């Protein structure tokens, strides 16, 4: 097992317990690996690397939203790879690319290289947020962007505390779907 796998798995376990700093560090490090992975894959199927950042963000959102499906008895790398590859194939299918060209790759490939290029996707989150229902928009803005506590957000949005949590979760899922729909060329 590589050092990277051990470090990232430790971060993942902490993040599942609700450790925000570990979660941030995990997503940050994974996003660099994913950037290198997607750039290489897009080049391999003859597409430009401009769309790589959109894919990185789709995968990061998926990893965040589906983190409850990680089984701690298993290594982390294959789990990340399965999500990364699923999102790549889904992206190519949405764009009607030929799937025959997607080469089979090994799980390790997703962690193989680091790409720290400071990058921006084509999505504008503030604009996408406006398409969410009011409750979701308010809950995400309060807790995720303004850093309020759940209790404070409940007060601001006129929701119960569990209502805020549900709205954040649903809102992020809807955002992920909006982003996926936008990533169509």
């Amino acid at each position, binding site marked *: 097992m590589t050092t990277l796998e051990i470090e990232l798995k430790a971060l993942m376990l902490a*993040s599942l317990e609700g450790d925000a700093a570990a979660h941030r560090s995990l997503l*940050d490090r994974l996003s660099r690996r994913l950037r290198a992975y997607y750039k290489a894959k897009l080049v391999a199927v003859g597409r430009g690397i401009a769309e790589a950042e959109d894919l990185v963000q789709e995968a990061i959102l*998926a990893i965040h939203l*589906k*983190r*409850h*499906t*990680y089984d701690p008895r298993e290594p982390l790398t294959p789990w990340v790879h399965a999500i990364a590859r699923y999102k790549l194939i889904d992206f190519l299918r949405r764009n009607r690319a030929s799937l025959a060209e997607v080469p089979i790759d090994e799980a390790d490939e997703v962690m193989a290289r680091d790409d720290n290029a400071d990058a921006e*996707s084509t999505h504008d989150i503030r604009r996408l947020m406006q398409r969410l229902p009011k409750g979701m928009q308010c809950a995400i803005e309060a807790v995720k962007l303004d850093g309020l506590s759940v209790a404070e957000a409940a007060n601001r949005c006129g929701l119960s505390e569990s209502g805020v949590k549900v709205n954040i979760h649903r809102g*992020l899922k809807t955002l992920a779907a909006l982003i996926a729909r936008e990533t169509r060329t």
Partner: protein
Amino acid sequence: MKTDDLVALLSTNLEPVDRKAVVRTLYVAIATAAIAALGIAFAGLGFRPDLTTTRALIYLTIKLAFAIGVVGLAMTYLMSLARPGGERRMSLFLIVVPFLIVLILAAISLGSAPRAHWERMIVGDEWLECLLSIPIIAIVPFAVSIWAVRKGAPTNLSRAGAFAGLIAGGVSAMAYALHCTDDSLPFIALWYGGTIVLCTLAGAALGPRLLRW
């Protein structure tokens, strides 16, 4: 949007995660599916009147053992298929075992019976009812299983769909067994096994559309 900003947004006020969610959702789904199937079978068809006689109980036990074996095995498969990469290193041999056992028992039973009885043993009284009932009763259990798998993150959608269909077919066969009065092993092998396989194929075909995330 910068990826850094997205990461910051997702990490702010992070909530701990319920790690048993995938497994628990599947158990809730299977319980709901079983109750729904029993209810539908009882309301639509009723249970067999001779349910407490020894002969009926013996065959009911065989049918239930087959169906429960299929459902139990399919559940263990679905627990890993509901997770990303769960299809890796998966041997599909085990799931074929209950079908093989029933087929072997059916062959032995046919072999030890006079040829004149074969047609009756295979076709039974109600083959058409069985052929229609099991897939129809399976619709609600299938919807519930798909709901449960969607809570996870399958990355092989046709296989996850197939196992959701297999569970639905197995649960439905369990419920139908309480009604069915065709007591012969070849009948069970052909009509129970066959309809469960049909449900599996339907699940495999529908999986990619129903399970995308």
